[in-house]
């Protein structure tokens, strides 16, 4: 139960952070991505602030096998850089550059009642679902 409560709280604080930082405003994001125009470097400071806070807790998490709520510590173990990682990330970056929404910002803007954010989120879910189906199919083909 407390896992669910703290998940809700984490999402809430994360979302407020996105609003405060400007990440939830597509015009601000596109201003940050527009190096050749009138560049607004603000959003580089978002990642800086988040990482400055995050480094020590993540180092502490790595030394543990269970969390403070006795959950199995599930940190990613993959360390290799492959074509899939890079191609997928480039595609994500292209989508980010088209509209200025990353997944979290889209959800927060949807929570503000923005209809256009709803269109973005629905298309994002469709894209995720499509890839999920493709992955499952190729896994089945390999298993057959």
């Amino acid at each position, binding site marked *: 139960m407390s*896992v*669910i409560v703290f*998940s*809700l709280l984490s999402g809430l*604080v*994360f979302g*407020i*952070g996105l*609003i*405060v*930082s*400007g990440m939830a405003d*597509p*015009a601000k994001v*596109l201003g940050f*991505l527009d*190096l*050749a*125009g*009138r*560049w607004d470097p*603000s959003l580089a*400071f*978002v*990642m800086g602030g*988040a990482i*400055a806070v995050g*480094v020590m*807790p993540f180092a502490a998490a790595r030394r543990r096998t*269970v969390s*403070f*709520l006795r*959950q199995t510590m*599930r940190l*990613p173990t993959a*360390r290799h850089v492959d074509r899939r990682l890079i*191609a*997928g*990330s*480039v*595609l*994500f*970056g292209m989508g*980010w*550059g088209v*509209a200025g929404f*990353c997944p979290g910002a889209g*959800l*927060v803007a949807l*929570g*503000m009642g923005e209809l*256009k*954010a709803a*269109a*973005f989120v629905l*298309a994002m879910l*469709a894209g*995720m*679902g499509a890839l*999920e189906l493709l992955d499952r199919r190729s896994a089945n083909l390999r298993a057959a």
Partner: protein
Amino acid sequence: MSIDWNSFTPGSAVAGGVLIGIAAAMFVLLNGRIAGISGILSGLLQPAKGDRAWRLAFVLGLLAAPAAYLLAGPFPKPQIDVGWGALVLAGLLVGVGTRYGSGCTSGHGVCGLSRLSPRSLAATAAFMGGGFATVFVVRHLLGI
């Protein structure tokens, strides 16, 4: 390159980033998981594995963030200048790309870099590059 000093907001960017870092740190230390929004969201599209509740709670937290922000005052309205077609295209790219590349700005950019993961560093460079390149093409080559 010229810097848009009028839009430059390093203070709120750092403050928002710190909140995002706190949310990610709280999530990993208490729940033992990476606060990667695309991963948490797409997990809801998979066949039930008994982990729907905390995923849903986190997403609800993001959606409720604007309502919580209202306690302090009106939230800044996001400025969405692109059209519906572009939003759908962006959503599809973000959905496919984040699943193919196993993460987005939160999972790779915030959590991955806080863990000093070389894989996430490569992914972050790739999606930033994709975003910069796309905005350059859209604004300066196509002139949209």
